[in-house]
């Protein structure tokens, strides 16, 4: 823990952790999707079907989103990012209870279980977003993003925030069932406010100020700016999102350490 330990020991530990994570990933995929029909492909087919359905619905109803942006691209960027931040906490809440038996192994830590599930969710959402983007672009339903780096940056920031939120809620849920009960209504309430269904610019100024206190909005706006560039005026402040995500990560890690001390293997 101190600088007294040789550097190679940290590297060795990292290698072990990576192996643990790899094994947990495979285990998660098998327990969740099994080997039937298309197996682990459900990982990204599931969110893809969700996004496709929402895109079709929004296109059919010509949903009011307060801008002249192409609806397909708008729905894809909006709903994919919702999947990203909403599924992570969903999967992490109660994750420890399901994996308590594994805690007998010396090298499997509480944090590893959360990270494995987060990686899985992140991978699924990302592959779904990427595959649908490529498909829609090649069908000519939308144009490729104007600034790929901005899209990637926004996406990673949403993922960071979602992951920190997921770990914090996951650790809390181990001690109280309330978290699980409350998360579902809360996530549904935040969904329409998270910037996925509207551009912040379309709101009146006082509503913009309120909406911009929700951290996800900044990430979604950044993704949108990367996609639409000059067509849309995005409102985001990385000076708000990054400190919030950092602080939340800190809290999340503290909670994990607390849970790790108290966890009782079955």
């Amino acid at each position, binding site marked *: *823990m*101190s*600088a007294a*330990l040789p550097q190679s*020991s*940290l590297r*060795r*530990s*990292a290698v*072990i*952790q990576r192996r*643990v994570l790899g094994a947990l990933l495979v285990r998660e995929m098998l327990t969740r999707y099994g080997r039937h029909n298309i197996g682990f492909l459900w990982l990204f087919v599931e969110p893809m079907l969700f996004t496709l359905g929402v895109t079709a619905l929004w296109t059919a109803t010509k949903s*009011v989103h*307060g*801008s*002249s942006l192409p609806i397909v691209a708008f729905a894809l960027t909006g709903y994919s990012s919702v999947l990203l931040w909403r599924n992570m906490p969903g999967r992490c809440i109660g994750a420890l209870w399901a994996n308590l038996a594994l805690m007998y192994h*010396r*090298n499997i*830590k509480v*944090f590893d279980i959360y990270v494995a599930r987060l990686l899985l969710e992140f991978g699924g959402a990302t592959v779904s977003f990427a595959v649908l983007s490529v498909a829609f672009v090649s069908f000519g339903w939308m144009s490729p993003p104007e600034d790929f780096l901005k899209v990637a940056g926004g996406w990673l920031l949403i993922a960071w925030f979602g992951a920190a939120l997921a770990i914090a809620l996951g650790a809390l849920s181990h001690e109280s069932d309330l978290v699980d009960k409350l998360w579902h209504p809360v996530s549904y309430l935040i969904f329409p406010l998270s910037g996925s269904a509207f*551009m912040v*610019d*379309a709101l*009146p*100024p*006082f509503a913009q*100020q309120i909406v911009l206190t929700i951290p996800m909005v900044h990430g979604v706006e950044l993704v949108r700016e990367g996609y639409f560039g000059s067509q*849309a*005026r995005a409102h985001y402040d990385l000076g708000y999102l990054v*400190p919030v995500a*950092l*602080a939340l*990560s*800190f809290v999340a*890690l*503290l909670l*994990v*350490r607390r849970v790790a001390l108290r966890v009782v293997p079955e």
Partner: protein
Amino acid sequence: MTVIERLKSVDRLFIAVVIVPTIIGLIYFGFLANDIYTSEARFVVRSPNKDEASPLSLVLTGGGLGGGGGGNAESVTVIEYLQSRRALTDVDQDGLVSRAYGGEDIFWLDRFGGIFGDSREEFYRYFQTKLGVAEGTNGQVIHLTVSAFAPGEAQQINARLLDQAEKLVNSLSERARADAISIARQEVAQAEEAARKAAVMLSRFRNEQGIIDPELEAASDLQMIAKLQDELIAARTQLLQLETYTPQASQIPFLRAQVRSLQKEIEQQRGGIAGGSRSLSTAAMRYQELQFNAEAAGKQLTAALASLQEAQAEGRRKQAYVERIADPSLPDYATQPRRIRNIIATFILGLLAWGVLSMLIVGIREHRD
């Protein structure tokens, strides 16, 4: 234990993530960063035709792309202008802006041309970071803020921007006014031309036919026929009486001749009014057409004159204009950088990052063979 040994014993991560950034922040915010003064102006772009906006257009502008709140088209134009390259060029004509941000006494990190080169595009981007154009919470008042390294320069740049915005709005409404009037003038000229043509046609027709008004003339001709018919009846009655009572009267042949000539005259008069290509009824048809044309042209001219007058009256009322609520202020102390606050923020963020990183590393170290 010397100081250096003591420092070595502290976690290296802590030094890298907390102490070094805080020291850099301390040096930068404490000594290097220049004071930034912000000048603020507030104004409204008024346009008299706002009342005519239908609920639909209110919804559209309220939910439009650049709309923000209930901003009207003019204020959107002004906002777009203030953020445009043209505004920067207009304000920087004598190099005021370049001098304000490129001074040698400004720390090179904050100075324009310090690290990113001094192309016009970079200058525009740089200026955008110093410029704030925001709609107030009700979407009507526009807040224009300019930050600079000297209070006077901030105020001067802000004032120039405001003046340019005012000029833009004035020229836009002047243009709209001139357009409206010139269109109305054109319409008046066209109507005048049409009315003149119609009048000329009518008078030429009168000259050619030798008739002032065919209907009046027909009426007088009909009167003549009635009189002739009276006479004819009188002559016939007399003739009948003479033939009955004094068949040998010497007036009989005379009366017969009179009756004949009267009948002939009546026939002729009737022919003049109706029937035949040179009769009055044919002329009346053509005459009515011409007169209708003349009347229509006259009415059109009246309408065109009225709309010209209206356009001129409209123009006398100012169309859209900038109303200043607060002139560009002269900041008397530097609001930026908030030195203590930024140093503390750097320290806290460093601590958070250190906490996260060290916990992650501890987490990794827990995995052992």
